């Protein structure tokens, strides 16, 4: 059952029994887009036509960066002198984000059909799905879905008699947040440590095994069949905010709301509607304190800032933050913000890949300072040092944006809730934590 404001496109079969099986997916129109491209309208759907349709939809990458998907695909060279690869980023590990896990476990076929269509658009015969190692059930479901798709002739050689080939295989990560960064993911997929690569060259030119590659998020691929089936214009118009933010978006809502979960709503929905109507509001007697809008790496919004925020890329940018992965963490007035911040810092300190000194040392140091604040063992100057130090931690001095993510995830909280950090410095007793 859809909640208020939900518009279910990707999630249309969510909650149905056996939603992960091919029968349920086909009954809801699954693999029709593929048939349209390869059989019914096969003269119309050249690779360029597919890319144009995706451009028209204003679909932007759902993994966090929000880069336009059609444009990203158009960067792959047209020639066929090297193999090309389609890679699905199913490494979901941005704190506060859990939508891809549901897609993998409950609706794997949408992603698979989207990847096959990407393969046709990019003249690629090979796709890989990189799942984070913890997703065991998701991996089993994806494996089973791939087998079903092969059996039906949607994957393999001569798909639906078209002469086209696309093979799909899974890969399991092994516990490293940084492998969600696309070049670290490719290193990992090549069997190495997950160390991000210096860019350029971008994966579109030199990706997996040195060949042109697109890396897209699970949700991004899952939107593609609907765009082909109903049209890019139709998809774009689903958005209700800035016209540049097309379509619906999955939001993973967690924290202090009555009904946390994954919801699919039009981009541009007011944040308040999502919290108070879709998610049933806060628990009784509680007031909103803050919202992390798009996963732990996106700057926090105070309750005041959240008041008029809209859930699209532009609306978030106006408030100095980002839509990110759509991992919304809602904090009510019972939250100990210092401990909350420490948990985020603890995570980053553990997950830096260690290649760049500012990131490796900086993220550890941020954690150390917050550990001292939390233990009532820091001075007010320490907080100042933290803020001035982090100004220089990212800003293009590192190989990948992880260092910036640490800064964006931590410092806005310290700045916006500084009195609570100061209060910790003065107290000597421990503060009760959690709910």
């Amino acid at each position: 059952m859809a909640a208020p404001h939900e518009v279910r496109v990707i999630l249309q079969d969510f909650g149905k029994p056996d939603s992960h099986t091919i029968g349920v997916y086909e009954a809801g129109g699954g693999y029709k887009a593929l048939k349209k491209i390869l059989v019914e309208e096969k003269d119309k759907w050249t690779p360029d036509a597919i890319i144009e349709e995706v451009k028209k939809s204003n679909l932007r990458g759902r993994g966090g960066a929000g880069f336009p998907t059609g444009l990203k695909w158009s960067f792959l060279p047209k020639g066929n002198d090297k193999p090309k690869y389609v890679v699905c980023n199913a490494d979901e590990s941005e704190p506060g984000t859990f939508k891809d896990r549901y897609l993998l476990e409950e609706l794997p076929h949408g992603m698979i059909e989207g990847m096959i269509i990407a393969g046709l658009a990019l003249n690629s015969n090979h796709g890989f799905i990189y799942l984070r190692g913890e997703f065991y059930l998701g991996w089993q479901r994806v494996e089973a879905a791939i087998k079903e798709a092969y059996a039906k002739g949607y994957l393999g050689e001569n798909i639906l008699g078209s002469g086209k080939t696309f093979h799909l295989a899974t890969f399991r990560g092994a516990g490293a947040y940084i492998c969600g960064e696309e070049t670290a993911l490719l290193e990992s997929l090549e069997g190495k440590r997950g160390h991000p690569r210096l860019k350029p060259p971008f994966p579109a030119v030199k990706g997996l095994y040195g060949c042109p590659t697109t890396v897209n998020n699970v949700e991004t691929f899952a939107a593609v069949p609907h765009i082909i089936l109903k049209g890019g214009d139709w998809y774009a118009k689903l958005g209700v905010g800035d016209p540049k933010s097309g379509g619906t978006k999955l939001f993973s809502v967690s924290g202090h709301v009555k009904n946390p979960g994954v919801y699919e709503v039009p981009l541009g929905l007011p944040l308040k509607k999502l919290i108070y109507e879709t998610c049933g509001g806060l628990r009784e007697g509680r007031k909103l304190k803050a919202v992390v809008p798009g996963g732990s790496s996106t700057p926090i919004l105070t309750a005041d800032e959240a008041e008029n925020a809209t859930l699209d890329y532009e609306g978030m940018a106006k408030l100095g933050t980002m839509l990110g992965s759509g991992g919304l963490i809602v904090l009510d007035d019972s939250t100990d913000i210092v401990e909350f911040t420490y948990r985020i810092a603890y995570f980053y300190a553990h997950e830096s890949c260690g290649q760049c000194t500012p990131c490796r040392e900086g993220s550890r140091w941020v954690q150390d300072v917050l550990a001292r604040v939390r233990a009532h063992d820091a001075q007010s100057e320490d907080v100042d040092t933290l803020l001035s130090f982090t100004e220089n931690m990212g800003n293009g001095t590192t190989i990948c944006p992880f260092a910036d993510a640490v800064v964006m995830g931590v410092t806005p909280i310290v700045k916006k809730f500084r009195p609570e950090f100061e209060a910790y410095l003065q107290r000597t007793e421990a503060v009760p934590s959690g709910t």
Partner: protein
Amino acid sequence: MSTEKTYQFSPHAEARFKELETKFPQRSSLVIWALHLVQEDVGYIPRDAVDYVAQRVGVAPSWVAGVVSFYSMFHEEPIGKYNLNICYNASCYLMGSDKLEECVTRKLGIKPGETTPDGLFTYTRQAECLAACGKAPAIQVNEEYYEDLTPEKLEALIDELKKKG
């Protein structure tokens, strides 16, 4: 040590490895897959398995060793039969994961990183969010997720696992 058999894939792992060999255009991709197979076989990555994987895939043992040490899911030493990964991240914290940590320490007498003397349980503080935040607090025990937990439910789970042994 000389009496100890050196590691090689179980028949099941061998069959899986052969299948995986057909799926990747370059063999180096098999390193991480092969390590997963080893860990499924013996529960951790013994030193001789590092050499074995290197030889089977065709890369240097130092490559494989570097991979083992990079990824948190690969264990270089044996761990408990049940690995209790308790999410320490933001959303689980908001929903009371501290009470789960406290419950494990009280019930099993172990702190993060420790294993019970009977070798049954290891308690891991999970730094990475488990992507279960909507049903926080959450833990993972080996491959399985347990969500919407309370200390009472966790206690019952631990009792059940103890009984299973």
